[in-house]
C-alpha cells in the first residue's frame, strides 16, 4: 500500500499552497466543532496518512446529493471535491465512459480492497429483480453488493440511501430500499437530507478521511455533530413561535413580517438537521428563511406523513419542551449512540487490521 499518496501530496500536486492547506485544516477543525488544538492533528494526519480512496456510486436517485456536494462553501471546496478526496470512481463526474468506466470501477475496488470508503447516492429498487435501475447491464443492487464487499465503511448520502426518500413513497412502485436493508455486514453512516447540506457532507467525509474512523453517531446512525438538534431549536423565527405569532396565509402581513411558519405546515419542530445553523448555498439562507416551512427532508418517512402543508399536531407548544419521560428517553439515547459509535469504530479498526495483516 506504500504507493498510495497522502492527502497532502495530492493537494500539493494540485498546486495548493502550504498556507491554504493550513487554513483548510483550521477551518475543518472549526467546522467539525473541534478546538484549535486539533489543527496540528488534522494537518499531521493529512501529511502522513495514505489517502483513503473513495468510490462513489449512484443508484435510483436524482443526483441532488452530488449537486449539493460540489457546491460546498467549505474551505477550498472545489479543491476538496476535485482533488483531496480524489474520488477514484464516480459515475457522474469521472472522465471515462462506457466499458472503460466499468473497468475502472473493477480496478479501483480490487486495488483498494478492504481499504476504501463506499459512498452511495440513491438506493437499489428491488422489485422485478432490480430491473428498474440497470447500470452496465446489471441491476444496481448487484453493483452495490459487489462494491460493498471490499469497503471498510459505507456512507449513505441523502434521504434516498438512508431511508428511501420520495421514490419509496407509497405505493413505492419500484420497491426502492435504503442501503442498510441490503448491506447488513458493514458499518454504515447515514447522512440524510434531500439533499444533505454541502458542508455537512464535506464535514463528514473530511472527518472520516482525517481520523480514519466514523464520527460519533446517534441512534439512527447519523453523525451527532450535525443531527443532534432540531431545526426548531435554532430557528431564527423561534421567538415568533414562542410569542404565538404565525403566518396564516402565504400573502398575509405576517408572512412579510417573517412570523413563524408552523401553521403553514413547517416540520422544523420534529426535524433533526443543521439547516438553521449551517444554512444553505454558502450559508446564505435555508427554506424557512425563504418563507416556506421545513418539510423535514432529513427525517425517515417524511414523504408519507400526510400533506407537506398539514400542520403538525403532536408537538408541545409555548415553552413546554420536555416532560420527565422525554428526559429519560434522551439519556437512553445518548448511551445508545455512544455504544453504536464505539461499535462502528471497532469494526472499522478491525477491517483495517485485517487488511494490514493480509
Amino acid at each position, binding site marked *: 500500500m506504500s504507493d498510495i499518496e497522502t492527502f497532502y501530496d495530492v493537494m500539493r500536486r494540485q498546486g495548493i499552497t502550504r498556507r491554504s492547506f493550513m487554513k483548510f485544516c483550521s477551518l475543518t477543525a472549526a467546522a467539525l466543532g473541534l478546538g484549535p488544538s486539533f489543527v496540528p492533528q488534522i494537518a499531521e494526519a493529512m501529511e502522513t496518512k495514505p489517502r483513503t480512496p473513495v468510490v462513489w456510486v449512484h443508484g435510483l436517485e436524482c*443526483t441532488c446529493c452530488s449537486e449539493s456536494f460540489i*457546491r460546498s462553501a467549505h474551505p477550498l471546496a472545489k479543491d476538496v471535491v476535485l482533488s483531496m478526496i480524489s474520488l477514484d470512481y464516480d459515475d457522474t463526474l469521472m472522465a471515462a465512459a462506457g*466499458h472503460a468506466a466499468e473497468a475502472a470501477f473493477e480496478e479501483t475496488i480490487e486495488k483498494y480492497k478492504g481499504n476504501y470508503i463506499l459512498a452511495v447516492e440513491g438506493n437499489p429498487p428491488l422489485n422485478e429483480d432490480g430491473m428498474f435501475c440497470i447500470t452496465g447491464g446489471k441491476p444496481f443492487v448487484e453493483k452495490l453488493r459487489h462494491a460493498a464487499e471490499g469497503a471498510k465503511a459505507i456512507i449513505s448520502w441523502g434521504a434516498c440511501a438512508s431511508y428511501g426518500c420520495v421514490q419509496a413513497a407509497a*405505493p413505492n412502485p419500484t420497491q426502492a430500499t435504503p442501503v442498510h436493508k441490503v448491506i447488513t455486514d458493514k458499518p454504515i453512516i447515514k447522512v440524510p437530507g434531500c*439533499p444533505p447540506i454541502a458542508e455537512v457532507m464535506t464535514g463528514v467525509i473530511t472527518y472520516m478521511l482525517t481520523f480514519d474512523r466514523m464520527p460519533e453517531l446517534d441512534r439512527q446512525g447519523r453523525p451527532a455533530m450535525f443531527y443532534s438538534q432540531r431545526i426548531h431549536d435554532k430557528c431564527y423565527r423561534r421567538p415568533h413561535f414562542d410569542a404565538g405569532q404565525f403566518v396564516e396565509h402565504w400573502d398575509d402581513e405576517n408572512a412579510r413580517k417573517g412570523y413563524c411558519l408552523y401553521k403553514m405546515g413547517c416540520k422544523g419542530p420534529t426535524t433533526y438537521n443543521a439547516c438553521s445553523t449551517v444554512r*444553505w448555498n*454558502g450559508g*446564505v439562507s435555508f427554506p424557512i428563511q425563504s418563507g416556506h416551512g421545513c418539510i423535514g427532508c432529513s427525517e425517515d418517512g417524511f414523504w408519507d406523513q400526510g400533506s*407537506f*402543508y398539514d400542520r403538525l399536531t403532536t408537538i408541545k407548544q409555548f415553552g413546554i419542551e420536555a416532560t420527565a419521560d422525554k428526559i429519560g428517553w434522551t439519556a437512553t439515547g445518548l448511551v445508545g449512540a455512544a455504544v453504536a459509535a464505539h461499535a462502528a469504530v471497532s469494526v472499522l479498526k478491525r477491517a483495517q487490521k485485517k487488511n494490514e495483516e493480509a
Partner: protein
Amino acid sequence: MSDTPRLVVGPFNRVEGDLEVHLDISEGRVAAARVNAPLYRGFERMLEGRAPGDALTLTPRICGICSISQSAAAARALGAAMGLVPTDQGAMLAALIHAVENVSDHLVHFNLFFMPDFTRPCYAARPWYPRAVARFAAIEGQAARAAIAARAGLMHILGLVAGKWPHTLALQPGGVTRTPGARDVLRIQTELRMFRKHLETQVFGGPLEDFAALDSRSALMRWDRGDAGLFLEIAADLDLDALGRGAGRYLSFGAYPLAEGHGFAPGLWQAGEVTAPNMAAIAEDLSHSWMLGGMAHPFDGVTRPDETMREGAYSWCKAPRLEGAPVEVGALARQLIDGHPLAVQLAGGGVLARVAGRLLELARTQILMEAWAEALDPGAVFMRQGNLPETGEGAGLVEAARGSLGHWLRIEGGKIASYQIIAPTTWNFSPRDAQGVPGPLEAALVGAPVEPGEDSPVSVQHIVRSFDPCMVCTVH
C-alpha cells in the same frame, strides 16, 4: 439484419442518470439506433391520491439538476387548476430563480459534461488538443474548476431568495414565498456581476453583448476568444455541424412567463416557420415502451409499467409526439423560435448548432437576469393566495435548461387523480412510435461514423451529449 454488427453503448458517464444506446453498424456508420432509458421510479403513480400541493415537494425530486424547472411546472399546473397566476413581481422573481438554474446547467454541461470528450487520446494529434486538455481534462481541467466556483457563487441567489438548492420550495402557484429586501436585491446584483465576469473572462473571452449580437454562422465561426472560441475551432476542425444533424422540427413552450410576455417566445418551428403549437395535439405513444395502455394526451394518460418487458419494446421512456411527429427541444429550439438570427441560421444543425445555441442562450439569459434584478421592487407583493378546487385540471408548461417540460394535473375530490409529466429528454430521447418513426436522438445518430475497433464511438458520445440529456427526468 442478423449480419449487421451490433453495438451497445453505455452506461454513459458525465450524463445525468442512466442511458444505453443500441447501434446497428453498417459500412463504418450507424445505420439505426435504439435509445433505452434503463431507470424507472414511478413518480406519476406516487402522486395519485395525494394532496395536490404535495406535487410542489415531490416533483422537484425527480431531478437534482433541474429541480426548479420541475417546481416551476408544478406551480404553473396547480395555478392553472386554481385559476391563479403569480403577481407581476412574483413572476419576475420566479423567472430569475428559474434562469439561475438554467444558466448553471448550461455552464456545467459545457465545462463538465460536453467538452471533456475532446481530451480523449484519439484526438492527441490535433493542433488544439493540448489546450483542450489544459482546460477540460475531467476533474483536473482549469475551466471546470473555475466553472464550479462561479456556479456556486451564482447559486447564492437561490439561497437568498429560494431558501436552498437543489429542491427549492419557494416557487408557489401565486408567486414566490420570499419577499426580497433591498439588501437581497443588492446582493443578487453583486452575484450577477461576478457571474458576468466569469462568463466574459473564461467562457466568451469578450463582452456578452458582442456574442449575443452574432447574427450569422460565419460571424460565429470567426469568434476566437475564450473557451467558446476553442470549441468553435474544434467544431470547425471536426465538422461538428454535420455530425448528428436534427430533423429541423423544434418546439418551445416559451421560457420565463412574465406579465409582459415570455423571456423567450413559445412556438413550433417546422419548415422554416414558427406557428403556435397546438397543445391539445400532444400525445404519448407507447408502442415501443415497456408501458401499458394506448396512445393518449397527457391529461388522459396513465403510467403503468409492463413488468414483462415485452418483446418489441425497448425503453421505459414513452414517445411523446406533437401532431403525430417528434420534435427536438432545448436551447437551440428556444433561440431559433425566439427569432434570434444566429440560431435561425443554425436550424437543423448537429452538434455545433446545439452547443452554440446553448452558449448563445447563456449570454442572452445573463442579460435578461440583470434586467430583472434591476426591476425587482422590494415593496411589491410577491405572492398571491388561492384555493385549490375540489375538481379541476391544469397544465404547467415551462422551459427547463434542456427543453420543454410539461406537467398535466387532474384533481378529483380534492386529491390528485392523475399527474403526467413529459420532460425535455423524453422528447429528445424518445423511442420509435407506432409508425416506426425514431425519436430525435435516434434519428440524429444515423450516419455517425464508427471507426474500426471503437466499442464506444466518440462520434456517438458527442451527439448524445450535444442534447444535454437528463435521463432521470426522462423516465420519472
